């Protein structure tokens, strides 16, 4: 029965997400043509240069203004949604941010991409896939964690459709979103991914978004070069991500109205595009040029790398709706070209051509940004079906990840989540324990006392409830200390026998931190006070915390090892 439910969910979420992804791509391409963003549309008006120049500046600017206004007035979330929101929902089995925010975000993504903003399409696609999966949240079909699995299905199908890469789709859903490989999730996600592939390839016969034909690698030492390239792109990726994270808050300080921020970013894109049309939009043609030997001069490629990095950080930071993955592919491949030009053109090392370096750089950079090395390696394999190229890209990807993980974090998404207080840097377990607050485990019958209470009374009350310590409060309800009967002798008032509390938790203390601090603690309960004013909120027993820890651990193990 569960098998049927899971297969049904996988097929439904998979096909819906795949069709929606195709629709999004089509809509963006339609807008790109209509708004003179696509080179093929621009060139047809080549006889009217003023028209092309005007639209180049106006389209992204007005697009930005509309995107900003729509977010402000129509979206309850007031911002574009993306993979971090999906990861959060899936990991903590919460519903996604409201459907309306999601739809608005998808709409503004289509507009942002259509108007040529320097953002990517895969983030919105992943979110769109997740929306279809999240409808399962409302179903009661008796399968634990069904909603998370269904969202994984939608995400896998979207990626599989976008890249014509079903294996990469499966891996992406597990590596980035689900973060475990339980059969209960793996099986339906695979079914959904294949569904996406079938819809894109067999039914619609769509070409892959990026097709690469590569001759392979002729010199053994090129693997070493590619490893160095991996380190280079990692450094660039770290710079890019830091810039991206810094731009948002800085802009928010400078410009008060959010719609003006996006309009300003759009204007920057438009003005740059007057001289450098390659920065407009997803840059499919620029990505293609990167695989052609000598398509860019050295100076040109440096300018383009800088421009694309800054504009992408600016567009995403300012609030355009769109992802960082496609721009990462582009910037990474340009860095690959730059590296190849230096190695083969300037240093004169014989090589097997720009394409290998462009692909390795592309995937090294992108894997550092999305934190999905396996997915990136598989995307290359499925796009090129070339073993040599995949191995080269793999080398670049691991070296890039080594550095970026150490110096920045596992991915842009994880760092964004960490800033929201969800820290995956020590793994999934740690993040889950950190999501549980000790304040939710307060014991209602913990004994409190005032300083002037009679020691004997308090002692009797403690005995009656089976506790050994009472928490002494002053008249404001602030914790003063702990009273343990019989510890000091025979005081008559509690006040004269108050010892300091050996361990105090705050209302912000989470389970992971609490367990860490409980090491070496002897006693039956720990008082919890408000971080703000020190007011006593209650006490948690050590036994309750240990149970909570064990329960959550068991739940996670169950989820990660569920058969069906």
């Amino acid at each position, binding site marked *: 029965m569960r098998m049927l439910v899971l297969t049904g969910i996988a097929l439904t979420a998979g096909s819906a997400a795949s069709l929606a992804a195709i629709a999004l791509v089509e809509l963006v391409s339609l807008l790109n043509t209509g708004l003179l963003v696509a080179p*093929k549309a621009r060139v047809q008006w080549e006889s009217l240069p003023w028209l092309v120049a005007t639209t180049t500046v106006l389209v992204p600017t007005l697009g930005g203004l509309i995107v900003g206004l729509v977010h402000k007035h129509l979206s309850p979330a007031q911002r574009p949604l993306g993979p971090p929101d999906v990861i959060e929902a899936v990991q903590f089995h919460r519903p996604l941010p409201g459907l309306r925010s999601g739809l608005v975000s998808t709409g503004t993504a289509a507009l942002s991409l259509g108007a040529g903003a320097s953002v990517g399409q895969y983030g919105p696609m992943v979110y769109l896939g997740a929306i279809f999966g999240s409808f399962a949240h409302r179903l009661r079909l008796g399968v634990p964690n069904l909603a998370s699995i269904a969202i994984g299905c939608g995400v896998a199908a979207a990626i599989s459709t976008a890249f014509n890469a079903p294996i990469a789709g499966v891996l992406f859903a597990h590596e980035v979103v689900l973060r475990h490989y339980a059969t209960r999730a793996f099986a339906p996600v695979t079914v959904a991914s294949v569904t996406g592939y079938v819809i894109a390839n067999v039914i619609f016969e769509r070409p892959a978004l990026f097709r690469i034909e590569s001759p392979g690698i002729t010199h053994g030492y090129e693997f070493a070069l590619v490893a160095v390239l991996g380190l280079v792109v990692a450094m660039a990726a770290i710079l890019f991500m830091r810039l991206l994270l810094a731009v948002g808050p800085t802009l928010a300080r400078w410009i008060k109205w959010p719609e003006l921020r996006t309009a300003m970013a759009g204007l920057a894109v438009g003005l740059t595009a007057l001289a450098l049309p390659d920065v407009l939009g997803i840059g499919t*043609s620029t990505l293609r040029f990167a695989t052609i030997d000598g398509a860019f001069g050295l100076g040109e490629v440096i300018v383009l790398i800088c421009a694309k990095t800054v504009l992408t950080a600016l567009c995403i930071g300012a609030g355009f709706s769109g992802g960082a993955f496609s721009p990462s592919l582009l910037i990474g491949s340009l860095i690959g070209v730059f590296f190849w030009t230096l190695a083969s053109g300037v240093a004169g090392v014989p090589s097997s051509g720009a394409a290998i370096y462009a692909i390795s750089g592309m995937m090294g950079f992108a894997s550092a940004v999305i934190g999905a090395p396996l997915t990136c390696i598989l995307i290359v394999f499925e796009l090129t079906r070339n073993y040599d190229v995949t191995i080269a890209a793999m080398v670049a990807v691991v070296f890039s990840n080594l550095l970026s993980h150490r110096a920045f974090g596992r991915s842009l998404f994880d760092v964004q989540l960490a800033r929201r207080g969800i820290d995956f840097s020590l793994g999934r377990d740690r993040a889950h324990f950190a999501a549980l607050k000790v304040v939710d485990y307060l014991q209602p019958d913990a004994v409190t006392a005032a300083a002037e209470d009679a020691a004997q009374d308090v002692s009797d009350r403690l005995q009656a409830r089976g506790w050994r310590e009472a928490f002494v409060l002053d008249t404001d309800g602030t914790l003063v200390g702990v009273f343990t009967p019989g510890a000091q002798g025979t005081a008559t008032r509690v006040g004269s026998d108050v010892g300091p509390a050996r361990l105090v938790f705050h209302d912000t203390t989470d389970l992971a931190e609490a367990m860490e601090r409980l090491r070496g603690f002897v006693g039956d309960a720990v008082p919890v006070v408000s971080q703000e004013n020190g007011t006593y909120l209650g006490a948690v027993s050590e036994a309750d915390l240990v149970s909570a820890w064990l329960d959550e651990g068991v739940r996670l193990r169950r989820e990660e090892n569920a058969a069906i």
Partner: protein
Amino acid sequence: MRRSDFVSLCLLVAAPVAAEDLTVVSWGGAYEAAQRHAIIDPYARQTGQTVTVAEYDGSWAALEARGAEDGWDVIDMLSDQARVACARGLLLEMTPRSLFSSETLEDFTPFGPDRCAVPQNAYARVMAFDDRAFAGVKPTRIEDFFDTDRFPGPRAIQRSPDGILEWALLAEGVPPEQVYGLLSTDRGLRLAFRKLGTIRDDIIWWEDPAEPADMLADGRAVMAAGFNGRFFDIAQRGRAPIDIVWDGRIIGIEVWAIAASTKAPDAARAFIVHATQPASMARFATQIPYGPTRVSAFNRIGINPQTGVPMRAYLPNAPQHGGRALVRDSGWYANTDKLRQRRFSKWLDWAE
């Protein structure tokens, strides 16, 4: 003939068109002779109409200048010329749905009729080589056209940017679906001309479409870019062992259109419906290697009556050819004419 087509044909023919006469305009030569034999004469016999055939140079300008005066009704055009003519109001608009059933509309390939034009046949710009020039390995890909080390010798190329720019990018490894997008950028044009520059010392230019086949035949060139029909003609008449490489073929579509000034719109429509029957297309394609634009016509193509050659293998859009194929983007061609000419002349100045 499908029943639905037959019904629509009958309806159109039975209308009060019986007495009307029709002027069909085409290109002359072997092409027109094949059209007469396969399409025009059977139509005249079936309807009893008198069909006059006029000749023109294929441009929309000629249609504008002579169409009304000479009483042109149905015109054979290149699809990009038809697109311009349509935009200029020189063509009579029609509703494809009223002429053809939905099954028929789906049968058209690579695209169906639009408001001004109905696809009638496909020709291709292909690469051909003189088999005598390469004793061992023969060229098989567009890349080989630009590889003068492995395949030395002069290349015959049209003195125009048409076709050769597409080939230059295909030879750089650009997939067909991205070729026109990339050629729309300054960088793409630069790369294409750079590729063309690598063979500039081996280029021999032609201007008349009949030349490339002759150049191969008399040894002035070892490879040539030209139209498949011309190469077929020379090869089949036994004048030279010319072989066609189908990889990188650029397929162009010929359409039927109706002059806006026509006095016999009903007869013109009836003629077009007749001319685009699978049987008519197949008859035409057995005469001359211009492929049908309907899928169902491919199964009917047989032996050329003059040479006895089975024709299916020589049609540019035959499904059995492997390799890369590009459908000429007529909208793009129509709008980038000046730009391409300008860049091409600039390149010529540099190259010569």
